């Protein structure tokens, strides 16, 4: 089996996906997981993707938001607060 990528690499890849599509697409945890599994192939699995999401949130780089469903986004000032 191929050697796994590091958790930071996976969370960085997730961060880029979120950043590059800000304003156009909202990412759910499941979508991010599917995207990194595709990107890294057998060097990543669901457990690693889960740890990467946790890292992304606990580092403060991303936050959970709720707009009908739960999403993972880069912190910003929201419309409702204005």
């Amino acid at each position, binding site marked *: 089996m191929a050697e796994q990528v590091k958790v930071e690499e996976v969370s960085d890849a997730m961060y880029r996906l979120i950043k590059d599509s800000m304003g156009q697409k909202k990412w759910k945890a499941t979508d991010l997981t599917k995207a990194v599994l595709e990107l890294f192939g057998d060097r990543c699995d669901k457990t690693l993707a889960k740890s990467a999401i946790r890292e992304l949130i606990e580092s403060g780089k991303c936050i959970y938001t709720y707009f009908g*469903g*739960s999403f993972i986004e880069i912190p910003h000032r929201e419309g*409702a607060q204005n």
Partner: protein
Amino acid sequence: MAEEKRKTPKLDELEKGAWPSFVKEIKSAAEKNPMANDLLGQLERSYEEKIGHWKHGGIVGVLGYGGGVIGRYSDLPEEFPNVSHFHTIRINQPAGWFYTSDVLRKLCDIWERHGSGLTNMHGSTGDMIFLGTKTDELEPTFSELTELGFDLGGSGSDVRTPSCCCGKARCEWACYDTMALTYFLTMHYQDELHRPAFPYKWKFKMSGCPNDCVASVARADMSIIGTWRDDIQIDKKAVTEYAESGLNIQRDVVGNCPSKCMEWDGKELKIDNKACVKCMHCINAMPKALAPGKDRGACILIGAKAPIVEGALLSSVLVPFIKLEPPYNELIDLVDKIHEVWSENGKNRERVGEFIQRVGMGNFLEAIGVEPVPEMVAHPRENPYVFYEEYFEEDDEGSGEQEEDK
């Protein structure tokens, strides 16, 4: 300087009458809390204009968690500045809702320090609901709650706070230990409870017997309802006592048995247990004489929901009988498999019941590796869309031969 009391002629009407009034309670909180005072003002405005003035959702929460806080803002912040933010916090209740009065006082003190002081005990999710605070107060509230031994509950697309009836703690009809299972599931699914990773919400609700006191059959994505598979226990002497004390057993017990599996000849009560559907009616009617059997466990049902994105669904049988004892491995394997299939294939905001309707029960069962059984048929003439491969194969071979014959 004390805030001027909001004038509330319309809300005042709701204080009249002999029943409890939420207006009275908010007014009492408004004596010392400006948030409660502005809440009255905004609510009065909504009653005048017949529109709500709240904006929901957003990005509020405590660090690391994706659930437990529901963001709410006023759309009239200049007029009602004290409720410009009015976020709700859900706090994971103890299984069965047992508290000491000392803990309740401490919880209320925390909330008076950090929020409106208004609570909802309990919300329909089962959690304790703390109503109304500002974004800056979320972390301090959370920190005091954790110090007291409490944690936030679920919200959003996560495992919602599991809840249960009081089960064996108070009720002799409990067919399994609902509180133990609720505690176990809450701890086992901590990650899924705090970090939303599903297409939509997932609710576990545990009832100890088919009376289903937490209404899990109507509300939970997975309803775990206690049942038994041997015979109803009958205390003949107590049956006679009921008859002698005037209970019309023929009319009120036997006559209301939905599967017509009881007989009463004026002396002896007989039950054809194979035909009993475990509705609990006879046991509820003669609690001193009848009781669930001794071989107890639970039935697992799947797919209930209230109408939100789509219409309401009741849950339907997935596992007719399971012994529910620690370490609950069989249950966890099943739940994990369902989560995997639903997360992989569910659409955004699609509850598992809707997902099953979309893909078909047969395909769902195949994906989670559960064999179809007759108990899954919810009502007569239902087509569950299950195709038995052995019949297919026979058919295919048959038609092949015919082709060759031609």
